[in-house]
Each structure stands twice: as C-alpha cells, then as structure tokens.
C-alpha cells in the first residue's frame, strides 16, 4: 500500500474540485431549459446516496482500494477481471475529460493549435504530478481550491455588476412539468459528475483518520450542488434557456458578455484558467487511480514507466475516442451513461456491497 496520507480538508477540496471538474463549463441539465436549476439542485441528493454506498463498501475494507477488495469479495480471477475493467474505465473517463478540456481550448483560444499538442502538454504536467505522489497532489488541491474559489467569486461578482442578469428568463417554472427534469437527472446528471465519485473508493484508504469521511463527503457534495445551482441559474438569467441549449460552452459565452466600464472585459482567460485547473485535477485523479490500480493488480512497485505508459494511453485515446466533438458529446449523453456509467457506478458497487454484507453475515454465523 502507498503510505501517502491525506486529511479531511484535503479530501473535501479534492471532492469539490473533482465534482466541479468539467461540470462548471458544460451545460448541465440544459435539456430541461429554464428548469435546469431544478435538475442541479436535485441531483446532489442522488449523489449523496451514491456516495453513501461507496462509503459502506469502504467501511468493509478500510485499508484497501476498490481494485483490491473486489478480489477479496469475488475471488481472485473474477475479482482481477473486474478490477482490470475498472482500470480501463478510469482511463476511458480520464480521456473523456481530457477531450472536454481540449475541445474547449481549441473551440476558442487555440483554433489553430492541434488537439494533440494540448493533450501532450497536459499529460506531461500530469505525469509529473503522479510522479510526486498523491500526498503532494492533495496538498496542491488546497491551493487550487483557493484559486478556484476566488476566480469563481470574481466571475460571479462581475456578472452581477455588469447588469447582465435578467431574472425573467427563469420563468415560467416547470412549464413542461417534471418529466424533462427527471429525464435530465437520470441518468446523465446523476452519473456526471456525482457517479464519478467511484474513484474515491480508490482514495479513501489513503485517509489519515477514518472518521468523519461521510460527513466531509456529504458537505462537499452539498457545496457543489449549491454552487452548480447558482451557476446554472446565473447562466439561464444571462443567456436565456434558448442560447443555453444551443451553446457548446455556455460559461464561455456568458463571460464574453461581461463588460464593465469599458475596462473589465474579455475575461475568457479566467474561464480558461479554471477549465485547465479543474480539468487537471479531474484527469489527474483518474490518472492516479488508474496507476495505483495497475500497480496493485500487477504487483508492481510505483515506477515511472507505468505513469508514462498510462499518460500516453490517456493522451492518445482522448483523441481516438471520437472523431469529432459532436460525436464525443453524443457518446457522452446517449451511450456512455447507459452502458458504462450505470454498470460501473451503480450496478457493480451495489452488487459488491450486497455480496460483501452476505459474506460477512455468513462468516459471523460460522464463528
């Protein structure tokens, strides 16, 4: 086991940064039009339930990551297979997130840069991060959290000052009833970002103290839920449901409108700063989990080769997974949630939890 240790505050910051990830920039719940904020205020509840399941699993084996206790629960061969699949899944999600970041960058400021250049740069930084170990990563998380909070607050203040908010865009509430709202929550908004908390099953064993994890996690989820709700409400107020639905990156569009006194304008770099920071943390977490999973599975000591290898795979597959951004989005909304997320985020952990509890009962009965 790696001996890196992280504390509660670091866990909180990491969960928040992780959940913000790409969520701040993508059009969460825009399918529900002006009711998107109802989606973002309800989905954290689903997130809490999911996190509770992961937490229960972790309590059963407080010192092992997911890829290890799978073997304990399901036996060596089936368990290894499942944990191998999880590693692939982590790599896949990492490449998806990386692709999101790359697409945002080439859509606006880097129109002439090739997508692979952006990917390679990011992966180099990530390999360095993984090389330094998780404890350093978690500590850097606090700094990133501070920077992110300040930036988001600044943007929020600018929205308000530059008089862009039209509250009437929020009306009418629930014009089409609850149906579109629920259709947005399940599965898309439940799986991204909340279901992706599955990677914290790999990270929780690194905690210094084993107490209060559930509380920390819930606070982080609630914090994210509240912020995302405010964020999407602002975006609706500024852009209107119509543009929100049409725009690929609503946050970038909204920030483009900010103009204060002819001096504070063109704030796109703030958004780029945020997307790179958050994307970095999110890809980094998946990357790190894939690497420890891999090292554990093949019983390797932490080495440079695994991280370079993994980095290369993530970088290349971020480009290979989809021929165009449209198909990337399409996959992300219509295929991945149903085929991958539901299985890996809900079905397998739930099954594992049930199995583990049965095993435990059985063992207790035997003793």
């Amino acid at each position: 086991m790696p001996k890196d240790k992280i504390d509660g505050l670091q866990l909180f910051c990491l969960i928040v940064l992780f959940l913000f990830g790409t969520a701040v920039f993508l059009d969460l719940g825009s399918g529900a039009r002006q009711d998107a904020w109802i989606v973002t205020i309800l989905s954290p509840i689903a997130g809490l339930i999911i996190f509770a399941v992961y937490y229960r699993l972790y309590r059963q084996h407080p010192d092992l990551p997911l890829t290890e206790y799978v073997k304990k629960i399901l036996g060596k061969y089936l368990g290894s297979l499942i944990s191998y699949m999880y590693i692939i899944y982590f790599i896949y999600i990492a490449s998806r997130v990386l692709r999101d970041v790359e697409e945002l960058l080439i859509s606006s400021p880097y129109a002439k840069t090739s997508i692979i250049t952006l990917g390679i740069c990011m992966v180099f930084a990530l390999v360095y991060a993984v090389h330094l170990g998780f404890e350093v990563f978690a500590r850097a998380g606090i700094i990133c959290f501070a920077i992110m909070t300040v930036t988001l607050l600044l943007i929020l203040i600018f929205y308000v000052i530059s008089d862009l908010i039209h509250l009437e865009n929020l009306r009418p509430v629930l014009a089409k009833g609850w149906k579109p709202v629920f259709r947005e929550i399940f599965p898309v908004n439940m799986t991204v970002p909340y279901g992706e908390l599955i990677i914290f099953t790999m990270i929780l064993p690194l905690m210094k103290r084993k107490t209060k994890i559930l509380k920390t996690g819930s606070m982080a989820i609630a914090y994210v839920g509240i912020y995302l709700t405010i964020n999407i409400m602002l975006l609706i107020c500024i852009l209107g449901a119509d543009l929100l639905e049409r725009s690929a990156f609503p946050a970038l569009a909204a920030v483009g409108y900010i103009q204060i006194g002819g001096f504070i304008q063109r704030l796109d770099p703030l958004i780029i700063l945020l997307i790179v920071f958050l994307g970095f943390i999110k890809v980094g977490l998946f990357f790190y989990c894939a690497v420890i999973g891999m090292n554990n599975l093949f019983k390797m000591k932490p080495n440079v080769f695994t991280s370079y290898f993994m980095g290369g795979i993530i970088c290349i597959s971020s480009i290979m997974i989809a021929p165009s951004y449209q198909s990337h989005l399409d996959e992300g909304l219509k295929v991945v949630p149903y085929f991958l997320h539901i299985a890996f985020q809900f079905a397998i952990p739930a099954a594992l939890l049930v199995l583990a509890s049965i095993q435990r009962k059985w063992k207790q009965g035997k003793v």
Partner: protein
Amino acid sequence: MFRKHYRHHKKLSKSIASNIEYLKEQFGNSSDLSVRNIFLSNHGKAAIIHIQGIVDEQSLHDNVLHPILAWSHEQKPIQNWSREIAQILSVSKVNTIDEWSEIVSGLLSGDTVILIEGHSEAILAGTGKIQSRTITEPSTQTVVKGPKDGFTENLGTNISLIRARIQNNNLRIEQTKVGKVTKTDIGILYMEGIAKEEIIKEVKERICKIDMDSILDTNYVEEALKDNRKTIFPLFQNSERPDVVAANLLEGKITIIIQGTPFALILPAFFIQFFQSPEDYYANYLVSSFLRLIRVGSFYVNMYASAIYLALITHHHGLIPTTLMVTLMAQREQVPFPAIVELLVMELAFEVLREAGIRMPRAIGPAVSIVGALILGQAAVEAGFVSAAIVIIVATTAISSFTLPNPNIVNAARGMRFILIFAAAFIGFYGIILFSLCIILHLCSLKSVGVPYLTPLSPVRVSGLKDSLVRIGTSSK
C-alpha cells in the same frame, strides 16, 4: 596531504626541542608561527608558541607572558607545574593537553601553547582574538524603522547580539566544528521548549553528517542540509539581522550561525516567510499587511509579467482591449525581430546590467545606469529595435524584484520567469497555467527539514494563517 597530518593521535615528547621541531614541521615552517624560547629560573627551558595575527597580543603579554615570568622568579618547589601555571594565567580558558592534534587545532584558533622542558604536556591558553569589524547596519534587509545592528563575521559577537535580545536561560547554544580542513565553528541556537525536539534532532544529525572540506558561508551548510537538492526555491532563510533571528527563535525555529559570515541560517523556512520583512512587525498591522500584499504581488509580477505579455501579443490578441491593441501594433510595426526574441534579448540585457551594477566599482555605478537607461531604453526604442512596451514590461519586472526582502526568492522567480516565457511563447496561457500548476505541485512537494514548505497554506494551519499573506494584529488582552 594536509589531511594525513591531522589524522594522527601522537603524543608530545618530553624534549622541548623535539616538540618545537615537530610543530614547525607540522606548520611547514610557516612564518607566522611565533616561537619564543624563555628560561624559567625555577624550571629550566620553556617555550611560548602562538600564531601571529590571530592572538590578542595585549592579552598574550599581560595575561600569559607576564605572569609566567613573574612566577618563575618565585623560588618555590613545584609539585604540579601545569596546575600552577593554570592558576596564575589570567585568561579565561586554560587547558592541559598532551595530544598533538588538539594542540595544532588550538593554535589555529588563536590559543597560545606553553611547553616546558621535561614534560610531555602542554598548556593551552585562550588568547584568541580573531580580527573582525565592528557592528554596523546590515547591508541587506534594511529597514526604515527598527533595530539597526547587524551580525558581523564573528560567531561570538553574533551570539552576544542574540543573547542581548533573548535574556532567557532556555536559549540553547550548541557549538561544534564542521569542515575537515577549515574546522569552522558553527553554533546551533534554539529555544528549549518552543522548538520541536524532532526537528532539533534532525538538524543535529544532518550537521554531523556534513562531509565537506570547507565551510566558508552559510550556503555551504544550506546545501548540505537541503531535503531536496533539485530545487530553485530557497529552503532556508538567511538573515543578517539579530532581531529577525531572535523573532524566529521565539517562534520555535532553529538558527545556525557560522564563524566567518554575517548571515545566519534560519530553519525550517516556509515559502510565506520570504515575503515577510522585519519591518512588518514594527509598523501598524494594517499598513504592514498592505505592504506584504504588495510584496507578494510584486513577486508574481516579477515572475509572470513578461510571460503574460508575451502570451497576449503572440497568442491571445483577442484579449487585449482594442485601443491598446492598436497602440501595441503601431509600436511593433518597425521591429524586425519576433516578440520572443525581443523579450529574451531585453531580459538578458537587464540581467547583464544588474550583474554589472553589482561588480562595478561604486564610483562609476551612475555612469552605467545612465548608459543602460539611455542606450538600452531610449535609443533601442527610437531605433526601432525593440518596442516601447517591452521596455516597460522588463522595467516593471526589474523594479518589482527589488521589493522582496530576500534575494534568494527573487532568484527563484527569475529562473521560473525564463521558463514561463518559453511556455508562453510555445502555447500561450495554456502553457503558463500548466507550468504554474507544476510549480504549485513542486512547491507542495518541498520540505524544509521535514516540514512542508507551504505551511501554513497547505497543509492549512489556522494559527499560521494569521501571520501569512496579511498580518492580523495581536490583541493585547
């Protein structure tokens, strides 16, 4: 060769002539080894040996020579000559020694050796007085208001300056000698009960492990003590000011003072500390918080200004306000070089000027600055070699570097600046942000004697945050 002579544990012989012969051989007949043969009327031949220049001649005469000669006239039977001489010498440190190595090192540190015919023992009298300058105002880390005394090159003086500030018996001073050739005295200072035991132990262990021939400045020790050698950031704080050292000692830090340099080493050091000036504590906390923020700001300006400018004018034209854009375009119209070349040349030119300014004899300093300002600034712009904006950026960068109280952190920022310029030229803001992330990660991975470098920012220490980027006033209650 030198080393070989010191490794022995030879004892003295009884013959004074052979002893003197041996010593002379050891010092290679060095001309400053002074041997004075005297005749003690009660005892026979004796010799008083010292090295010229590092002994206090006055004290040697009044406290050693004179008492011995006076005593030799007393016709008393002698039981234990060495104890009797020790009694009559009026210096504070007297030792009786029979081993050559200690005699040699004693001589080297300014002691006087007294040999007497027929005894295989020598007496070492502490008459050392190493020449040092008087206490003056420190040349770096100057303050407008606050104490004006600075350390000197003398270890004893420096310790006395600290003792004068902390009159407490918990102030511990441990002296050892480091450096196989130079045998430099170094003192480890800490406050018992405030400094953490494990850090003290760690520091002592690391100092014991130092395996170097010479220690001439704090940097020698610094490099030996570093946790991570591959870093450009200073892991320890240097200070020339006794008040800074005293304040740090009281916060639980450990200070290492080295004979021969006025700079004390304070450890563990935190990143934040390099932005704190002693003056912060001598002024109103609101004012000092403001000044501290200015310093932090200038650090980032120093590091990022040129990279951000380059990113803007080569990658992100859309982010420059239109009127400014037109001005910048007009300025660059005649410039024959790409912006990156222009910027690098100007940055390097400034570094050259800065280096020249330090080496330059003081009298022609102003001439250099006139040439630098006129030739490089005005003429280059007028000739159309560089754009005026670049000159402004480089000048801003340069000026902002002078606000920081510690030169080491400026050097770190300088190094980072050049890499950031390349990153910006390569891929604009994306490169800057990614490299900044790497810097953050690097800073998080650093430790100063086992304590994370970014404390109290990360890991967060609430008590430490009160005196970090801003200083929150301490209430007197």
